């Protein structure tokens, strides 16, 4: 009964659709580029995730504004939402702001799988952006020393001691993960040594592609092609994030886009402790690539 209800919801939410405009060049890293203005902006209502616990109890992000562009190779979305705080870091008690878009992979008679991250046999293609990853890309990996500049450590295994800064500072400072060289030193980093696909100290894009077949099944794709960029507008207190995916891909886990597809959204407000299933989401919205059959 639950699944039936979920499929009904998009219908209830009205006849919104996102129309992507064809442009020759997509400004992948420039959310304020005027090319975006060519696409119509659509404001989409978000709901708190309360289907599977833990729930989102306090929903702070209520809507998300979306514009879409496409060219011969890419489909790109510009996502904007209001968030009073720019939450970038991840601390034991701190979470970064995030956004994700989702596209259907397995369609049944033209209908997408469950918008709750798909269902068994109904895969979805998810691309997630995190403010933390944006910081990693722009300023270098957000490491222990960036988070706790005054932290002292006697020793890390297989990292030369005493630790001296570039100017041989005294007292010496503990080295940063970005300064580790000996591969043996990385054996003391469990998530890295266990090849957790999300643990990576070098990042070129602030987005990751995943595939899912239901709640709790999110797993990173082998082939990472998505591009993204996020900027926080301090004045308007708005995140502006671009997420772009290939229009047609060899990757069987990717969505392929014809003239008519679907997209859905999830937003996390870090300062409210949003993460994982504690998110605001929107069910499927039709995504029309203007001018395509």
């Amino acid at each position, binding site marked *: 009964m639950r699944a039936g209800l979920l499929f009904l919801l998009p219908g209830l939410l009205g006849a919104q659709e996102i129309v992507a405009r064809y442009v020759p060049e997509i400004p992948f890293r420039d959310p304020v580029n005027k090319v975006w203005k060519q696409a119509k902006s659509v404001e989409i209502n978000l709901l708190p995730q309360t289907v599977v616990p*833990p729930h989102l109890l306090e929903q702070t992000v209520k809507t998300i504004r979306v514009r879409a562009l496409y060219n011969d190779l890419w489909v790109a979305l510009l996502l904007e939402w209001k968030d009073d705080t720019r939450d970038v870091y*991840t601390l034991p008690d701190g979470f970064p702001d995030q956004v994700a878009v989702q596209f259907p992979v397995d369609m049944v008679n033209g209908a997408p799988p469950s918008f709750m991250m798909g269902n068994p046999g109904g895969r979805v293609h998810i691309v997630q952006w995190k403010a933390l990853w944006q910081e990693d890309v722009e300023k270098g990996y957000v490491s222990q020393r960036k988070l706790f500049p005054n932290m002292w450590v006697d020793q*890390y295994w297989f990292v030369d001691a005493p630790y001296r800064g570039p100017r041989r500072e005294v007292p010496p400072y503990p080295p*940063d993960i970005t300064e580790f060289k000996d591969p043996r030193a990385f054996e003391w980093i469990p*998530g890295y040594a266990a090849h957790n696909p999300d*643990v990576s100290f070098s990042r070129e894009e602030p987005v990751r592609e995943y595939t899912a077949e239901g709640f*709790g099944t*999110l797993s990173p794709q082998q082939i990472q092609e998505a591009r993204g960029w996020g900027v926080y507008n301090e004045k308007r207190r708005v995140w502006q994030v671009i997420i772009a995916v290939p229009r047609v891909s060899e990757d069987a886990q990717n969505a392929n886009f014809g003239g008519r597809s679907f997209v859905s959204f999830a937003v996390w407000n870090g300062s409210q402790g949003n993460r994982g299933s504690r998110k605001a989401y929107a069910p499927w919205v039709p995504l029309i690539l203007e001018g395509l059959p």
Partner: protein
Amino acid sequence: MAKVYNWQLDRKMDYIYEERRPRRQVAWVFDINKCIACQTCTVACKTTWTSGPGQEYMLWNNVETKPYGSYPLKWDLTILKMRKQLKAEHKTIFEAAGMSERALGYLPESDDYMYPNIGEDECAGIVEKGAFFSGIHQVWMFYLARICNHCTYPACLAACPRQAIYKRPEDGIVLVDQSRCRGYRECVKACPYKKVFFNVVTRISEKCIACYPLIERGEQPRCVQTCIGKIRLQGFINRPDRPDPENPMDYLIFIRKVALPLYPQFGLEPNVYYIPPIHVPRKFLYQMFGGKDAVEHAIATYQKAREDRKLLGAMLLFGATEKIVHRFRVDDRYAYGYDEEGNEVCRVPFEEPIHFRPLFDRERRVYRLNIT
């Protein structure tokens, strides 16, 4: 929600998954009366497992002074208070969770981890002038050594929406799958003992792994092997309704009931069992170790251990061998420990042999300061 049986509460309770006890359950007995807070266990664990970047603030094993010590700060007071405010003192953290959460819990602040030694060696009150000379004084404190309890009903496991935490069927060790975790910290929030930690460098969660590489080859974990006070014994317990009197763990926990779980009222069926400290106000202990009857019985039994060869024998096994003791027996002179195959792994005398040596050693032409 499934209904599962929690023997420590002797009732059925709600849990997200069906009851599925491991083939055997890893367990520990800590004799708090003997702990000297030397922190050797803490350092042994730290240097073995958490000396990497992002793990700096983590202490999978920690030893805190009660009543004022706690790491992370106020972990126990906070969850006790939450239960009280919800008037849920008779509910487990699973039953008190409500519809929106999988367990009642809170996420500590980063700063809560910054004072691992807070309150160390502080007594519960002031020692009146002169009280040192007039016999036993009334102020108290004790050391509480803590590791992950490898719970039968782990809250960390229940809370993970990705099922990245699992309990091994072969020994009940609870692990965070380092290749699956995405760092949501639902486990950190849910574990009332706060024994899952977030690694800020890998951005995923980690916890005590019970030194499983040692356990798999029949040896006790590092914190047990290195314990200076010989307060620890690690072994396996059988099902509570089928204890084996020759298994020292079953004997201490199920048969003699001298070792008690920490905050069993939370409902996790934790598997570190404490011999309560005998000089501490009883009310404090009742709250921590499962109520009046359990505490009074454990202390009375412990205080009579001198006249109780088998009990004393089981307690002599603590710190006597690096091997896991599966079976034990006592005779007039010794307590014997055996491994899984039945090989003797330790033989501990009830009476330490005493040798007297002459004050002056003629052969080496030296005086001895220590002649026994």
